[in-house]
C-alpha cells in the first residue's frame, strides 16, 4: 500500500510537471543562452543549465511530456489492439484462430524489441511518432497474451457457463463478463508496460532515433551530457535520475495496484 502511494505520487508529480509545461516553464527550452551555460544547480537555476544555457528544470518538464506522451500512446496501441486479440484467442481457445493469433504473437515476441524499434525508426526516419509506433507494436503481444491467459481461466467458471446456457454469444460474454473480470490484471500490466515505454523512449532518443532536436527528451539529454560528465555531472544526473525515479515510481505503482486489485492475493494475505 505504501508502495502504491509513493509510486502514484511520483507518477503524479511527473505527469503534473509535464502538463504544466504546456502552459509554463521556468525558462525557454528552445532559446540558447551561451553566456549562462553549464551553470551548476542552485540560485536562479535549481537544477543548473545545460551546454546551451537552457534551464534544466524546464528541460526535464518538457522531456517528461515527450516521455509520457510516447509511453501513453504506445501502451494505448498495445491495449486497443492486444486486448481484443487476447479475448478472441481465449473465446476460440484451441481453435485455428487461437493458434494463428498466439503464434503471430510469438513471432513478434521472438524479435528483440529495441532492435526492431531501432530498425523501424531508421527506415521511416527518426521522430517521436515513429518511436511511438515502434514501441506500440511490441506492446500488442504483451497485452494479447496477458488477456488470453486471464480470460482462459474464466471461461471454465460457472458464471460463464451460466451465461452460455442463457444463450449469450462469445462476443457478448467476452465483453460483458470476461473483460470486467480481467481488467485488474490488464491495468497492472499497463503500468508495467508504461514504465517499459519510458525506458524504450529514453533508449531510442539516446541513440538519436526518438524526438528530434530542439524538442528536449531525457534520452538525448543523457547522450549529449556524456562527454561533459566529468566537469558538469548534473547534465547526466538530472535526466538519468528522472528516468530512474519515474520508472521506479511506475513499478511501485504497478506492484501496489496488483496487491490492491488482485482478489486472490488479497485473500491469501487475509
Amino acid at each position: 500500500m505504501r508502495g502504491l502511494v509513493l509510486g502514484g505520487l511520483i507518477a503524479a508529480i511527473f505527469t503534473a510537471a509535464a502538463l504544466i509545461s504546456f502552459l509554463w516553464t521556468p525558462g525557454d527550452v528552445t532559446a540558447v543562452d551561451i553566456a549562462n551555460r553549464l551553470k551548476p544547480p542552485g540560485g536562479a537555476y535549481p537544477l543548473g543549465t545545460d551546454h546551451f544555457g537552457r534551464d534544466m528544470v524546464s528541460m526535464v518538464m518538457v522531456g517528461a511530456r515527450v516521455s509520457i506522451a510516447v509511453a501513453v500512446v504506445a501502451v494505448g496501441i498495445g491495449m486497443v489492439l492486444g486486448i481484443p486479440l487476447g479475448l478472441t484467442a481465449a473465446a476460440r481457445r484451441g481453435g485455428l484462430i487461437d493458434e494463428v493469433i498466439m503464434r503471430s504473437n510469438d513471432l513478434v515476441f521472438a524479435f528483440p524489441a529495441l532492435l526492431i524499434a531501432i530498425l523501424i525508426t531508421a527506415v521511416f526516419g527518426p521522430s517521436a511518432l515513429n518511436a511511438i509506433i515502434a514501441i506500440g507494436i511490441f506492446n500488442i503481444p504483451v497485452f494479447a497474451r496477458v488477456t488470453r491467459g486471464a480470460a482462459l481461466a474464466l471461461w471454465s467458471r460457472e458464471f460463464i457457463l451460466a451465461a452460455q446456457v442463457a444463450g449469450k454469444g462469445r462476443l457478448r460474454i467476452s465483453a460483458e463478463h470476461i473483460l470486467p473480470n480481467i481488467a485488474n490484471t490488464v491495468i497492472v500490466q499497463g503500468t508495467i508496460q508504461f514504465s517499459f515505454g519510458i525506458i524504450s523512449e529514453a533508449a531510442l532518443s539516446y541513440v538519436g532515433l526518438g524526438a528530434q532536436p530542439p524538442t528536449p527528451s531525457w534520452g538525448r539529454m543523457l547522450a549529449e551530457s556524456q562527454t561533459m560528465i566529468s566537469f558538469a555531472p548534473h547534465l547526466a544526473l538530472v535526466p538519468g535520475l528522472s528516468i530512474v525515479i519515474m520508472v521506479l515510481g511506475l513499478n511501485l505503482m504497478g506492484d501496489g495496484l496488483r496487491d490492491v486489485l488482485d482478489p486472490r492475493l488479497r485473500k491469501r494475505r487475509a
Partner: protein
Amino acid sequence: MRHLVTSAVLALIAGGAMAQQTSLTLGMQLEPPHLDPTSAAAAAIDEVVYANVYEGLTRFHADGSIHPGLAESWVISDDGLSYTFTLRSGVKFHDGAEFTAEDVAFSLNRARGPESTNAQKALFAAIDEVTAIDDTTVEITLERPNGALLFNLAWGDAIIVDESDVETLETTPVGTGPFKFSDWVQGDRVELVRNDDYWGEPVALEQATFKFISDPTAAFAAMMAGDIDAFPVFPAPENLTQFEADPRFKVIVGSTEGETILAINNAVEPFTDQRVREAIAHAIDRQAIIDGAMFGYGTPIGTHFAPHNPAYVDLTGYSAYDPEKAKALLAEAGYADGFTTTLKLPPPSYARRGGEIIAAQLRAVGIETEISNLEWAQWLEQVFRGKDFGLTIVSHTEPMDIGIYARPDYYFQYDDPVMRAMNAGLESMTDPDDRAEVLKAMQERISSHYVNAFLFQLAKTGVADARIEGLWENSPTQATDLTGVRWTE
C-alpha cells in the same frame, strides 16, 4: 631463487621502460572507407596514408608550404607552360619495384584520365601531357599557365603509385613513403611499420597504429587510460581543458583548412532572394556558436577562406550579428512572418550542436527550421549529391577551395558568371601578387552576395602524450604526418 627471478623480471621491466619508445598509437574518429587516396574524397584516407605510406612529386609541410617530395628539383619554362622535374634516384616502392619517371607519368595520367575516379580531378585540369624523358626526368606540359601546379601536385590525390599495384591499392597500399602498410583490422585499426629502405631521412618510429574510435566518450577514456598516445583531431573540444590540466598530456591547438559554413541552397525558394540569405547571415551570432558548439575553439570568418592564408580578408563586417536588420530584410523580401525550412546536420559536433544554436538564432528572427540529424552516408546522398535541403552545416576541409563557388552544380548551387570568370582568370595566373588580388576579389564577391553564412574556421584540437614531439600543429592538408614524430623519453 625466487628472489633472483623477481629481480631479473624487474630489471627487464625497468630496462623496457628506460629504452626509447618506438611505437605510437594514434586515435582517429572516422575509419577510412579504403586506403587509396586517388579514388575517394574521404579525409580519413589521407589522414592515414599521406606522407606516411604515399608520396607525391611535391609535398606539404606543417606550415602549409610546398617542398620537394619525390621530385628533387624542377625547372619552369619562361612561359609557365612546361615543368621539368628531376626525380630522386634510388627510390623503391615497398614491394621492391624501382620508382621511375614512368610511374609518375602513369600515376598522373591515371588521375586525370577519362576513367579516373579521382575526387579532385580539377587539380590536373590544366595538364596537357606528362612525359617521361628518362628514368629520373619528367616533363609536364600545360594547356594554359597554372600558378598552382606545384601546390596541386602536393595533394594526397596526386600521390605516385606503381602501375602493377593499382588493382589492390584500396586494401594493401604500396607507396614509396617512410612507412609500409602492415595490417588493417576493419572496424578497429590500421598498422604501419617502418620502411627500412626509405630513400630519405629515416623516421624515429618503428611502428604506428591508427585506431578508430568514433564515440567521443570512448575516445576520452582511451586517452586517459593510455591506450592511445595521441589523438590528432580530438572529437570533443569540451574535454580539452581536462587534458590541459593533466601533466601527462599536451593539447595542440592549431588551424585547419576547414571553413565551417551554414550552407544555403541557393537554387530553391526563398533562398534565391539575396535579401533572405543576407537576413540569415545577420541573424547568426558566430561567437555564440564558437563558444557553445566548440567551447571557444575556432576563428570567426566572413568568407570562404582560411584566415592564416596571406590573401585572407576579414569580411565578417558584411554579416555582423544584427537580428533587427535580419527581420527588416525578411520583411522587405516579403517574409515578414518568416518561413519554415529544413536544416540537415551531419554527425560532427560542430554541426549537431551548432545546428541547435543556429536554429534558436533563426527562430528569433522568425525562421523556423526542421532539424534532421543525418549520418554521413545519408548526408552525402541527400544533401551533397541530391541537393535536397534548405540549410546544412558542414566544414570544407580542402585547402584553397574557394573555386567551388564557380561551380553552379556544386551542392549549394551558386550560379554566378562573375565568379566563374574570376576563377578562370585565377587558374591561369602564376604571379603570387596577382593571384592574391583575384582571391581577395573572390572572397569579397561571395561575402557580399551572402552565398552561404560563413561561420568559423575549424580549429585543429589535438591531444597527445606530453612526451611526443613532432605532430603537426596545423592542418594545411588532410594528413597525419608521422615523419618527424618521436618520443622524447
